[in-house]
């Protein structure tokens, strides 16, 4: 797929002038460059550059990575496919990267030396903020890619701050300058205004056409620092990521800080204390290429008959079993699900399949938790924990797609901290488990610091949305005609269709990112929903007391439309404790009869009735009321 040989603008061929040959060769590498040399066993620190790419979604991170891989001949042209580093299909479809990935590139620089460039590609999404922070610690510099026709967005900011926190050297790159709307000068100013980074040396490129890529490669070598490390010290490597491979078992990606790891070593994971033998040691180009050892500054993978990804912890420190270090790397945090929801099979017979599927996915995802749950409404299922909403969606989609399951997802909720009167602090993952209020002293909920960037014409709507969601404004600044608002918001309000609302009030022009900030007390209550005086557990939720009434009313109204009429009228109520705060009545059915039924219709109509009767059996029975599954799904998708 020689994408870079077509559609090149005059600007891009100009940019290529200084290079020998001045054009792309038939295999996408640059003519006249030496072919990659044989890989030495271990590389001198000053010949290594480790970097990541920071970008807002769609600003061109994956395209740039492809281009870097392609132009250095790291991957043979015939093996080249778009978005090389996005491994899973689901990622390619959604255009997001979920797992960290790395690629080792050999680059013969203008100084005549060949450098090893290790790119770690990170998810970039807020759900994976911790994973991103670890990846950032594994490299020394970042390319900050900004779409020259768009400017800095919320996700750019969140990630660039992570890079700055990690002490990175940052090289700004202005992408998509082939677009007529590109305005590199304005975007340079924008970078300086919003991020406070000197952008005078920003590199203009078109990742699409290939223009400017050689400059980027050169800048990686000349502007980013080489890693530091002591090869004679005990082994100290950071676990950057791990994943499950059906042939190799668990594959662990590491960055060596100090010391050397060799094939055959016995190594220890400092968090878990588990010891493994290094069966395979390799680097990713991006396919695995075995290597005898990895020294300081190097990035690679190893395997060692680890059964599940659970046994590996992102951010853990790896050392040798004997004479290892006793000082782990700082900053390790256990994976902490923040958003929970129930997953139930639509067909109760699929429960075992769902359990198996969840177990399999967990082998490859330590941050996804599950616990069996029974609901009177939905039967047997699982309460699952996720790093965020995107993570939830990805897992649910994979369960449905890869395991061919039909699932009901209950409304996402966050983890509330219940401070009991006896001093105990309990985590509440499921509103249905809320204990009697008389035992609860107070409740805390997670708050986030949200950054929203929006064209100023939509600012009013965004502020209103944030206020409606119990937000506290922290900051409001302008850069050009874009406003940047920073809000303190309850996470619970954000997991509840906040993205969708934001998208719709700003016609898709806002960008949004957040960090979890703290737990804070508020007047939170459990709202139950009663249908025909029976509580429906799957519909209960934690809400702020001031918002309970409107939420309750909306829910009752929605259910009134979603539950089919019965032969009797049905009260639908929202209640806090014993107090009803909203009520609707679903009228009794008034008409359900076949107008014409003569001799010929008997067989057909009887079959139809029997089929409908069988269909009714699929509904969930609450006392005398039958609620179709679709009603749960739709009710929980409520937008108010």
């Amino acid at each position, binding site marked *: 797929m020689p994408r870079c040989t077509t559609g090149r603008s005059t600007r891009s061929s100009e940019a290529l002038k200084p290079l020998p040959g001045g054009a792309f060769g038939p295999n996408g590498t640059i003519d006249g460059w030496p072919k990659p040399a044989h890989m030495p066993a271990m590389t001198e620190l000053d010949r290594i550059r480790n970097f990541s790419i920071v970008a807002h979604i769609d600003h061109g991170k994956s395209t740039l990575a492809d281009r870097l891989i392609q132009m250095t001949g790291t991957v043979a042209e015939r093996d080249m496919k778009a978005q090389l580093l996005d491994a899973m299909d689901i990622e390619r479809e959604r255009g997001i990267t979920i797992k960290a990935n790395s690629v080792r590139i050999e680059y013969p620089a203008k100084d005549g030396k060949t450098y090893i460039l290790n790119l770690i590609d990170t998810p970039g999404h807020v759900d994976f903020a911790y994973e991103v922070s670890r990846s950032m610690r594994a490299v020394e510099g970042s390319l900050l890619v900004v779409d020259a026709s768009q400017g800095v967005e919320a996700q750019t900011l969140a990630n660039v701050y992570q890079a700055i926190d990690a002490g990175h050297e940052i090289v700004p790159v202005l992408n998509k300058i082939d677009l007529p709307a590109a305005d590199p000068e304005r975007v340079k100013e924008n970078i300086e205004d919003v991020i406070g980074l000197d952008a005078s040396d920003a590199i203009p490129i078109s990742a699409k056409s290939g223009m400017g890529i050689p400059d980027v490669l050169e800048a990686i070598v000349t502007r980013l620092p080489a890693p530091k490390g002591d090869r004679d010290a005990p082994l100290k490597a950071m676990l950057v990521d791990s994943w499950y491979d059906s042939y190799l078992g668990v594959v662990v990606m590491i960055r060596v800080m100090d010391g050397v790891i060799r094939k055959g070593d016995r190594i220890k994971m400092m968090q878990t204390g588990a010891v493994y033998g290094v069966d395979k040691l390799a680097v990713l180009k991006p396919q695995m290429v075995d290597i005898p050892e990895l020294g300081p500054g190097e990035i690679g993978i190893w395997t060692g008959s680890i059964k599940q990804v659970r046994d590996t912890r992102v951010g853990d420190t790896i050392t040798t079993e004997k004479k290892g270090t006793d000082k782990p790397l700082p900053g390790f945090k256990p994976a902490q699900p923040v958003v929970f929801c129930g997953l139930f099979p639509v067909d109760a017979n699929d429960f075992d399949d769902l359990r198996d599927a969840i177990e399999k996915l967990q082998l490859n995802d330590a941050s996804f938790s599950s616990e069996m749950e029974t609901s009177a409404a939905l039967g047997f299922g699982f309460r699952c924990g996720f790093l965020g909403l995107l993570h939830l969606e990805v897992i649910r989609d994979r369960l449905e797609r890869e395991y061919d399951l039909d699932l009901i997802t209950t409304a996402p909720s966050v983890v509330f901290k219940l401070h009991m009167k006896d001093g105990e602090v309990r985590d509440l993952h499921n509103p249905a488990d809320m204990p009697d209020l008389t035992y609860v002293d107070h409740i805390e909920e997670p708050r986030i610091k949200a950054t929203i960037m929006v064209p100023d014409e939509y600012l009013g709507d965004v502020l209103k949305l944030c206020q409606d969601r119990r937000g506290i404004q922290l900051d409001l600044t302008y850069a050009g005609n874009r406003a940047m608002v920073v809000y303190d918001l309850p996470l619970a309000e954000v997991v509840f269709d906040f993205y969708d609302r934001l998208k719709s009030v700003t016609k898709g022009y806002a960008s949004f990112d957040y960090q979890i900030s703290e737990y804070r007390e508020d007047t939170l209550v459990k709202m139950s929903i009663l249908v025909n005086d029976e509580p429906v557990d799957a519909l209960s939720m934690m809400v702020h007391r001031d918002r309970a009434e409107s939420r309750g009313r909306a829910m009752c109204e929605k259910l009134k439309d979603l539950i089919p009429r019965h*032969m009797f009228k049905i009260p639908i109520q929202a209640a806090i404790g014993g107090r009803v705060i909203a009520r609707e009545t679903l009228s009794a059915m008034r*008409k359900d009869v076949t107008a014409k039924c003569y*001799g010929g219709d008997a*067989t057909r109509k009887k079959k139809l009735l029997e089929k409908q009767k069988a269909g*009714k059996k699929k509904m969930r029975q609450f006392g005398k009321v039958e609620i179709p599954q679709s009603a749960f799904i739709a009710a929980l998708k409520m937008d108010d």
Partner: protein
Amino acid sequence: MKHSGVEDWQDAGFALYVHWPFCAAKCPYCDFNSHVARQIDHDRWRAAYVSEIRRWAERTPGRVLRSIFFGGGTPSLMDPETVNAVIETAFDVWTPANDIEITLEANPTSVEIGKFRAFSDAGVNRVSLGVQALDDDALRLLGRMHDVDQAMRAWDVANEVFARTSLDLIYARQFQTAEQWRDELSRALTLGVSHLSLYQLTIEDGTAFGDRYKIGKLPGLPSEDRGADLWDITQELCIKAGLPAYEVSNHAKPGAESRHNLVYWNYGDYVGIGPGAHGRVNENGQRLATVAASSPHAWLASVEAEKPAVEETALHPSDQAGELLMMGLRLSDGVDLSRYERLNEAPLRVEAVRQLTDLGFLRIANGKVAATDAGRPILNSLLRELL
């Protein structure tokens, strides 16, 4: 077979249904087996009907024929000769009841009005006239080819010519208000009617209306509540005029009920001939459900080749019980419980009956179970509980 002495059908009698599958044009709401044909060879059709009647008569010897019904399609487009031949043959092979009812469905266009006398001469003594609406705009929306004036002329001629008449109206139409229906039905009731079929418009799959409905392009249809209001108005006005509902959609002065349709609803025996016609026929203690090929061409050819394309299925007694219930609960009179139990070899679901009686939708009295006035408009829900 199981039960001794009287066969089940004898409770309701024996009738002949003749299906005429052609119309001048297809109406957008209609899912009956009706087709528009450029040419019809009436002689071939006549011969085919006659041959089928003779074939069935051999399997149902000695029956007393309570009714003949020419349905369609548009049977008023039949050649009166054909109608005559059917009646003559039927009278020849079965014993006609003294008060046999012979009904023909007619569309109220001028072509057909002109044939009314000939149908009467052939022996037709009852006409069911497809007026559908007493409003020209509504008739256009329904895709009908007649207007109200023509319908009224047809009605007058029909009443001169035939001893008994009935009129069909479709209500709960697009954009129809309660007031409009009240007015329209009141006018119909001043026409000296003794039998009325009042159908709520049903959107059927595979019709032009069905297709439009699916893509959301059939506006103005009543909600359930508005449909129910229209139903209530219908019952109120008809009762006041002395034509209470004797079946879900059929209203008559006492004694003016359609005997033919009562054979269906009381689950009697009927021979059905013609394309797509259904029948229920007891033969040697077995109850057969019969259905003829629906394609006019295929049916005709098969009959002519003496290999009539008619499927027959023996009905298990419990299926018969289900059909009895489904048809019988449409009648205000309801269903004979002992007859149901005899077929089903078990009583009606006790718990469901109790619930539905408590809710006021079902009534049990004099050995019969019936839907109440409150239960009839939600009959399908009752049946889903009872079947």
